[in-house]
């Protein structure tokens, strides 16, 4: 067997494993959701990969890159298995009735460009693990029931362009480093935030 074909086989095995993996992850997600309008009807678990399911987009290697379930009447919770979709770039779950905490495993989505989970009923804290989402450009978590402080670790997300956490129950101060230098104040309004951080003077979680 030539070297090229060995490499080809390795790639093939890798992506086949991955297909199966993402199908399982999405199926697990489905089982956590209530879907009164049957938006997920086409999610047939017997198929080897999920690329022909509606609202799921794959790249040419059959990796799931988009999940589009915005405004779909979905309720239920998110689970750790979502973190297995390693190639996911767009996670669009906006304007639903999703409740519970944001799983910290979403921080494993290294390719994620956009996470839109605004207008849901999410609670708990913004996971610190989001600091691992180095490709993230859009993060919209506004209009939920999130509490705790804005993790300082998010200041390391140098690609972050659009950030909105308005209308939550967040506390502490607003970060000022990295991309946070340029986010408009509207992105933070209607929280219990104490204004921009005065570094060295008060701890960032002051008032939490």
């Amino acid at each position: 067997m030539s070297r090229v074909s060995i490499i080809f086989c390795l790639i093939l095995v890798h992506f086949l494993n991955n297909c199966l993996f993402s199908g399982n992850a999405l199926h697990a997600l489905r089982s956590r959701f209530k879907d009164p309008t049957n938006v997920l009807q086409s999610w047939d678990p017997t198929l080897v990969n999920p690329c022909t399911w509606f609202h799921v987009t794959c790249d040419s290697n059959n990796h799931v890159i988009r999940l589009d379930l915005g405004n779909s009447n979905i309720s239920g919770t998110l689970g750790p298995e979502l973190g297995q979709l390693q190639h996911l770039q767009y996670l669009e779950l906006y304007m639903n009735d999703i409740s519970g905490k944001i799983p910290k495993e979403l921080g494993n989505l290294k390719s994620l460009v956009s996470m839109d989970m605004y207008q849901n009923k999410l609670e708990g804290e913004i996971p610190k693990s989001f600091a691992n989402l180095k490709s993230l450009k859009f993060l919209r978590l506004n209009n939920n029931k999130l509490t705790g402080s804005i993790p300082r670790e998010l200041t390391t997300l140098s690609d972050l362009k659009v950030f909105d956490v308005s209308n939550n129950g967040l506390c502490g101060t607003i970060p000022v480093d990295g991309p946070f230098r340029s986010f408009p104040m509207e992105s933070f309004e209607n929280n219990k935030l104490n204004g921009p951080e005065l570094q060295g003077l008060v701890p960032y979680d002051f008032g939490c």
Partner: protein
Amino acid sequence: MIIEPRLIFHYAMMSPNLKNNLVIFSLIFFILFCASNFPPVVSFYYMEEAHALLKWKTSLQNHNNGSLLSSWTLNNVTKTSPCAWVGIHCNRGGRVNSINLTSIGLKGMLHDFSFSSFPHMAYLDLWRNQLYGNIPPQIGNISRLKYLDLSYNSFSGTIPPQIGHLSYLKTLHLFENKLNGSIPYEVGRLCSLNYLALYSNYLEDLIPPSLGNLSNLATFYLYDNSLSGSIPGEIGNLRSLSDLELSNNKLSGSIPPSLGNLSNLATLYLYENSLSGSIPCEIGNLRSLSNLALNNNKLSGSIPPSLGNLSNLATLYLYNNSLSGSIPGEIGNLSSLSNLALNNNKLSGSIPPSLDNLSNLATLYLYNNSLSGSIPSEFGNLRSLSKLSLGYNKLSGSIPPSLGNLSNLATLYLYENSLSGSILGEIGNLRSLSDLELSNNKLSGSIPPSLGNLSNLATLYLHENSLFGSIPCEIGNLRSLSDLELSNNKLSGSIPPSLGNLSNLATLYLYDNSLSGSIPSEIGNLRSLSNLALYNNKLSGSIPPSLGNLSNLAALYLYENSLSGSIPSEFGNLRSLSTLTLGYNKLSGIIPHSLGNLTKLATLYIHNNLLSGSIPSEIGNLRSLFNLELNNNTLRGSIPLSFRNLTSLIRLRLDRNYLSSNISESFYIYPNLTFIDLSHNNFYGEISSDWGRCPKLGTLDFSVNNITGNIPPEIGHSSQLGVLDLSSNHIVGEIPTELGKFNFLIKLILAQNQLSGQLSPKLGSLAQLEHLDLSSNRLNNSIPKSFGNLVKLHYLNLSNNQFCRGIPIKLEELIHLSELDLSYNFLREAIPSQICILQSLENLNLSHNSLSGLIPSCFEKMRGLLRIDISYNELQGPIPNSTTFRDAPIEAL
């Protein structure tokens, strides 16, 4: 005093004057009768009882059956006395005192049974006949009755309250009938009662508290009814009770603590009710108790440690409740215990090591709880144990080697825990083992060859662990094995040919491993096999033709391997096969014609291989086929006409081949079809309007073919359509307005055709649309304003058309758009500054138009914008100061 009915008859006919005298006379007469054995008078009573019995006999439906009650007749031998009749016993006075007619097939009712004719009857047993109808209230007239058994019949209606008159009654058995209504509280007056059995009826309502008066009661059976309400605390007064069974009712409320007073109780069955609350610790006072079953209720709280006092307890069933807390170590004191089932609760904490004192334990079920910690190594002392199930817990640590001492063990279930370490060879000592389930743990190491010694093993589940190494060939010695599941591990090496010896094997799952080498031809010897799954391994070589011998095979999964060679034509012999999946391999050659013999086939997946030749017309014989995927091969030729017969099809993928046929002739109407992908072939001809007659169609992909003609407006009837891709064809004409009816359309791709005319504003009704690509056509006029309603769009490409006029301001509403391409059109006027509202936009191409005016400075605020191209327009003014513009190549501006 008992007055004979016939005397009353005479008495009533006398004149009033005579009556007084006659009363005296008859009293004398009666005393004389009782004192002597005066034959003519005795025969008078015989007559009365015999006639009553005969009257009842003739009322029975099957009284003409010669053998039934043949001795019940008035002839020279029996004269008029029934005492010698079958089932009849008389007292020394010649009066009937016992009727015992069990299991003789009597069919009829009791309405013609004259209860009052038998004043001396103490014993009435009609057990196991086919009697039906109500129990007559006159039964209350047999006032000397001590024993009444009407069980195993079909009596219906309610229990007559008059039964409460039978004050001598010691036994009342009415079980296995169809009695309904409530238990009359008058039953509580039967103060002599020892045995009460009303089980297996349809009795409802409350258990009357008056039953607490039955102070001599020894057995109390009300199970299998529909009794509701709570258990009356008065039952705790029944100090003689040895057996209390109220199971299988609708009893609710909590268990009365007063039951702890029943010091003689040996059996307490309250299972299958809706009892709630906690188990009263007073149950621990029942020192005589040997069987306690409270399973299938809603009991909560913890298990009272006082249960450890029940030194005679042999069976303790508390399963299927909501019990929490830890298992009290005191359970280890129950040295007589042989069955302990605490499964399906919410028990936590670790398993108490004291359980190792239970030397008589045969069954130990603790599965489906939240038990943690490790399996106590002391369990190796439970030498009587035959069934051990600890599955579905949070147990960790390794499997103790001492379990290898449990020589009577028949089932060992440790599945769904977090057990680690390796499977020790000692398990191979358990020669009685028939079920070994260690699946869904974190077990590592290799499979011990000693498992091959378990000659009684029928089930071996080691799946979903981290086992590595090869499958020991000794597994082939397990001749009793019917189910072998080693899937989802890290097993490597080849499949041992010895597995071909497992002649009873029905299921063989080796999928999701790293098995290599070829599939041994000996697998073809497994004539009992019905499920064979070897997918997702590294198996190579060709598929052995011997698999064609597996005549019972229902499902064969070989996908995701590196199998080469051709599909054996012997597969055509697998007449039981309903699922065949061979996708993602390197199979070459043609699709065998013999597959057309597999008339039960529902799923045929042979996609992503190197198959060549044409599709055999015999595929059209597979009338049961739901799923057919032949995509990603090198198939050529045309679609056989027989495809029109595949009317059961739900899913059809032929994409990425070299198929060429006239698309309008090759397919017909598939009423259940939800998915069809014919893309990347050489299909030609026009799209038939018949596709609109597939009402469940969700995906229709005909892209990259040579299809001509128009888009038929009838396609709009496929109301479930979510994806429509007709791109890269030669389709002409306008986009039909009817496409605007697709309420569920998510993706519409019509790019690279020759579509012309203007876009209907109705396309703006596609509210679910996420992806719209109409690029590279000849569409003209303006971009409809209604496109602003497509709020879920993340991709919009209208490039390379002939759109003119301005960019509609309404597009500002597409707030989820990440890519917008309007390049290569004739768009005029200024770029509306509202475009800057599209905060999700990453790629924007407006180049090669006739846009004029200033470049909107608000572009600077489009923070997500990654690429922008506004070149080849008539724009003027300063270039906005943002990274996107600074980074853009000069030709893009």
